């Protein structure tokens, strides 16, 4: 499935861009794929949103979905 990937914070630094196009069937597969491609992601904590809604378990993806990877910030 053709997905638009948005990243924030340290994730953007690791992946190299804040917006990119990827292909994945579901969120677990997408995560595994990204970690394989960018091993620096393995030890990062982040949460996943599909079409602007946070997910807490594996979610199927469809063409045109937007997936956002959000790391927590602590600065204040």
């Amino acid at each position: 499935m053709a997905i638009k990937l948005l990243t924030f914070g340290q994730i953007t630094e690791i992946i190299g861009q804040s917006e990119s196009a990827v292909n994945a069937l579901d969120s677990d597969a997408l995560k595994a794929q990204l970690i394989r491609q960018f091993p620096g992601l393995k030890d990062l904590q982040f949460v996943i949103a599909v079409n602007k809604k946070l997910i807490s378990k594996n979610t199927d993806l469809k063409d045109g979905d937007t997936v956002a990877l959000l790391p927590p910030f602590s600065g204040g």
Partner: protein
Amino acid sequence: MSKEEKYNRYQRQVILNEFGTVSQDKLFSVKVLVIGAGGLGCPALQYLAAAGVGQIGIVDFDIISLTNLQRQVLYATEEVGRGKAETAAKKIRALNPEIKVEVFNTRIQNSNALELISPYDIVLDGSDNFATRYLLNDACVLLNKPLIYGAVFQFEGQVGVFNLEDKLTQIKANYRDLFPFPPLEKLSCNEIGVIGVLPGIIGVMQAAETIKIVTDVGMPSTNKIISYNVLNNRLYEVEIVPNENMGSVMPKSKAELLKFDYEWFCNAPPINEQITPEDFHELLKNEKITVIDVREKDELPLITWIENIHLPMSEFGRGIKTISPTGKIVLICQSGKRSLEALQILKSKNPGCEVFSLIGGLDSWEKKSKSSV
């Protein structure tokens, strides 16, 4: 002061149709507690005071240093070395002598969180570390107070409103629904840097959310997190959905909150809380221990060669209550990452228990067993 004089200062907002004296009165009667008088706290405090919030509490134990002044704009160069909470109070009292300001020159922690927060109506999180953020969240949930979240990293910020019931959906989400686990590395503005205007923007957005909630004007970002990037002015809004599993990790009473070890929860376990496959092997031979497999139900093969409890991470928060372990506990997952998270949870809820995470998980244990055959 006469009725007219009461609103004089606020005339510019009172004449707005949506606002009026009704909204101003609501601001007069609310009490807002601001945790941290730093990058986020300074701008938030300025605008809350300017708007006429009746009572503002400031919690900060730190002193002003030179490198703060790049973004903590309440302070003057000659004030370097002075206490932040007291100095911030002095500045906002000068800005608006009509409001009440309380100073708490202290660090917020388990022992005082509930006491500090109880008298206030809303909490604004201007802290700079994860342990405090989780503590504030849990205390606000226990005391049923809305929490205005803000955080920054280099050129990006986050804002959100937690623990406030959405009028339409009646849903109430909080910080643990958004970020169930903290990152294990500690990164502060001191180490990674931040552009000065960023906390300025985010802090004022937090003040704006507070004002919207109090006056019922506009739409607060309830159950949402807004990500903002100052480099390209992009705003991205994500809806947070309550996560039942992580809800169980949260302390459910004052006693549990006092016991919960937030530093533990937010820091990597020391190396002696992690066990090598060799030592695990020895332990199994010599002692009666409880082994917990935290992999999900569909991860195969199941561990059949030793007695174990299968409690997947997706149910861990809820499920640990049902376990009465005998002796030491060893947590296992596939690679050793999730078992570390499970260890964080177990130890922060039960600081006295003896629990270990298997280094490298099943992957390394299998490798070790195969090589020793």
